[in-house]
């Protein structure tokens, strides 16, 4: 069965280890390692693929054809780029805080990796199905703000400093409406467990019951992932690359890839919360749940790319105004309306 190919593999592995006479704890540990390895492989491959996809999509939106020289249809372009970036010399500015400067590009991956633990890839395909899944997601995701800031600060460059400050301001401001928007969904579900949220969408996806929340979420997520029109901390036409300006070679590649890992994560969350997660639409259940999940997150990623290659960049004060004066009140209003709606719903007692 394609549907249960991964779950089945896990069961088979566990039974194999049990048959070999090993204790259950050891089986769990091995299984955990396999899961982590699988997720890491998924991240690595999808990040490489998404970089390629972004370049290809950018090209198609711009009437070009994009990378097409390395490998068939340019598929190995990102791999070749990575090869180049790895082989480059690591340049550390003299004034930079060496340890922080070198540590941050490595650390930036840690929150992303931690977050993948709660990603519901398919039916019964969550590494850890925490009962505070969404909360955990936001708590860990916020940490990356500090890493962006520390990386920019350590570079001892004014552009990096401006970019880092913008990163902090922007990410914190947009975390608020994002969390408030999701609160609507959590109110309806009554649980923060990822699998519960998905199962609550059996009948109707939350994009239809919570459209405002979805729009707020998409906007805030664009800001969280620093993509156009909210790519202020990179802002290549004003502060060039923001916090990453002094990074070259693999240091830069790490930041770059982490951005794409974050892009996957926000798409995952959008899919889980609003697009029904692994649930198949129109009863098309013959397609496995994890395929549906991948399709949905790639659709979300594509939408983010579409935004990026269409829109110009907003200014920093406008960004703040928009976040605090439009999105936050709007998301609060959404919670209010959701609350009233739920009250009426229960009062009628459908």
């Amino acid at each position: 069965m394609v549907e249960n190919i991964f779950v089945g593999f896990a069961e088979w592995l566990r039974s194999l280890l049990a048959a070999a006479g090993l204790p259950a704890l050891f089986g769990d540990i091995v299984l955990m390692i396999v899961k982590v390895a699988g997720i890491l492989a998924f991240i690595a491959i999808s990040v490489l693929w998404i970089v390629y996809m972004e370049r290809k999509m950018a090209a198609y939106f711009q009437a070009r054809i994009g990378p097409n020289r390395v490998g068939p249809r340019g598929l190995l372009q990102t791999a070749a780029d990575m090869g180049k970036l790895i082989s480059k010399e690591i340049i550390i500015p003299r004034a930079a805080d060496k340890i922080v400067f070198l540590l941050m590009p490595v650390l930036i991956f840690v929150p992303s990796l931690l977050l993948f633990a709660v990603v519901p890839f398919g039916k019964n395909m969550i590494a850890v199905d925490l009962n505070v899944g969404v909360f955990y997601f936001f708590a860990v995701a916020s940490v990356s703000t500090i890493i962006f800031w520390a990386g920019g600060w350590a570079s001892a460059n004014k552009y990096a400093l401006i970019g880092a400050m913008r990163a902090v301001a922007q990410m914190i401001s947009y975390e608020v409406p994002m969390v408030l928007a999701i609160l609507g969904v959590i109110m309806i579900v009554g649980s923060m467990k990822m699998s519960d949220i998905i199962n609550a969408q059996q009948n109707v996806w939350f994009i239809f019951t919570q459209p405002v929340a979805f729009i707020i979420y998409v906007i805030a997520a664009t800001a969280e992932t620093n993509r156009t029109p909210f790519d202020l901390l990179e802002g290549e036409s004003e502060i060039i690359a923001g916090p990453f300006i002094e990074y070259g070679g693999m240091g830069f590649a790490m930041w770059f890839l982490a951005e794409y890992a974050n892009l996957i994560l926000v798409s995952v969350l959008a899919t889980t919360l609003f697009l029904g997660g692994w649930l198949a639409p129109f009863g098309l259940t013959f397609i496995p749940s994890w395929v549906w999940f991948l399709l949905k997150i790639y659709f979300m990623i594509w939408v983010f790319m579409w935004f990026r290659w269409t829109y110009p960049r907003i200014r920093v004060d406008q960004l703040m105004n928009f976040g605090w004066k439009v999105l936050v009140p709007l998301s609060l209003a959404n919670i209010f309306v959701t609350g009233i709606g739920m009250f009426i719903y229960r009062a009628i007692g459908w």
Partner: protein
Amino acid sequence: MFGQGLLKGLQITLQELFTKKVTVQYPEESLPLAPRFHGEFVLDVEQCIACSLCANACPNKVIEIETAKLDKKRVLTGYMMRLQYCLFCGLCVEACNKGAIRFSQKFEMAKYFRDQIPLILYKGEPPVQEEQGNTGITAGEAEGTEV
């Protein structure tokens, strides 16, 4: 109103996603060049009377002509263009009354070393007597013998 322009932009980029792409895959395919294209120079040695009009017309002193006297007649013995200074403005071609110096359609003029850049269009032996040494090398062959 608010949002309309944003949607319009999305619509335009979505349309472009499906239109024909304009990229030309250069080494494999190339665009047709205009007949007047200013490419590399060719010299019709038979036509050249070594009058130096081209060298004088050049704004940047790119052309270096060597001549020798043969029976009171000037004969071309060397024609070199220092292409690193060339503006490709076409004033030399325009100055030539005989149509000896012309543009070709060749535009791939990159060289690996700086000393390969000067374009030697003609390098002949100084004529000994009569019209013997004048047959020289033609332009096409001269390209291969760059120093």
